[in-house]
């Protein structure tokens, strides 16, 4: 990516501006997700259990075997994914075309993972965790932006 020259497509000034707004919005949403996922990862690593205080559903989800893959917490993978989205969105703002492709595929992968985690919560654990739902909402927002993007670029 370092050697790649920026290849910004500027159809019109409005198109360019709307793209910039789109990528900045994606980067900001990813930042919120990164903060939340980092928070959960740190609590996991420090052995903190007060994170769910009073919510049995939260315990059911975060204490389940689905909350980690091997020894890695899913929140840690989420932090990595959000950071990737932030990075790709930032590079996209500056016109790196390949970053846009990476951004799309990363968001698609996160969307699929979110669907799987929602399925697990609804049908296997029968409990929903507020942190997971918040993260799901962020990823739906990101997906919405990615889906809406071609229309914005056409204008």
């Amino acid at each position, binding site marked *: 990516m370092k050697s790649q020259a920026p290849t910004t497509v500027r159809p019109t000034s409005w198109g360019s501006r709307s793209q910039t707004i789109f990528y900045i919005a994606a980067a900001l949403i990813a930042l919120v997700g990164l903060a939340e996922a980092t928070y959960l990862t740190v609590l996991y690593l420090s*052995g903190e259990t007060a994170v769910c205080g009073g919510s049995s559903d939260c315990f059911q989800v975060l204490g389940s075997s689905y909350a980690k893959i091997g020894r890695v917490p899913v929140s840690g993978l989420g932090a990595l994914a959000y950071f990737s989205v932030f990075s790709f969105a930032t590079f996209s703002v500056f016109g790196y075309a390949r970053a846009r492709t990476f951004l799309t595929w990363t968001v698609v992968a996160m969307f699929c993972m979110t669907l799987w985690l929602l399925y697990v919560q609804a049908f296997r654990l029968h409990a929903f965790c507020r942190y997971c739902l918040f993260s799901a909402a962020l990823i739906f927002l990101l997906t919405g932006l990615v889906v809406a993007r071609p229309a914005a670029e056409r204008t």
Partner: protein
Amino acid sequence: MKRFLPFIIVVVVGLLAIGGGAYFYRVKRSANPALKISRTEAAPSGEAVHVLGPADALVTLEEFGDFQCPPCGRLSESINQLQKQYNIRVIYRNFPLPMHAHAKEAACAAEAAGQQGKFWQMHDLLFREQEVWSHSKDARSLFQAYAGMLQLDLSRFRNDMDSPEVQQQVETDQHRGAAIGVKTTPTLFLNNQAVPPSDTDPNKLPALVENAVKSTKPSS
């Protein structure tokens, strides 16, 4: 400069995330330090007991508790603070009362966590979340969720909860309590002296412990 700007932004955010996470981790660890003097040791009679604090502490507080008993829950945090403040020795023994539907299962959950070296973590968690699991129809699945949060081996935890060793441990504690006249919870013994039930209160206990520490301190 503009060419390097995205790299700078990404690196700065990455460093902030890692640095912030590391700082938050340190804060959390210092607020909840790992239990350094916590162990399960064999009593002279042969049974295992859960001990917090140094073996040569001037004051030993022995509690017969029931994880579903609300006064025990209210007392739990107070005892933890006293242990840290005066470096006393705390011994916890299970005394699940028959009127509490999930008390014995909770005791078994704590003992099963103890099999993986996390008795006190489960002890604290059970008392802190008492209000939730006490009213749950499926307390057992919550205990498993707590075990997951404590990063225990879940299949081992499930097996241990039903194992004869764990059941035996809970019953041994109960028999010991019954043998020395324990009828209710929490029942406390301060240096082997029974604490009057009216003093087993988070507001009154600190003064009793403080007096016990002062009276046992060498005069020199």
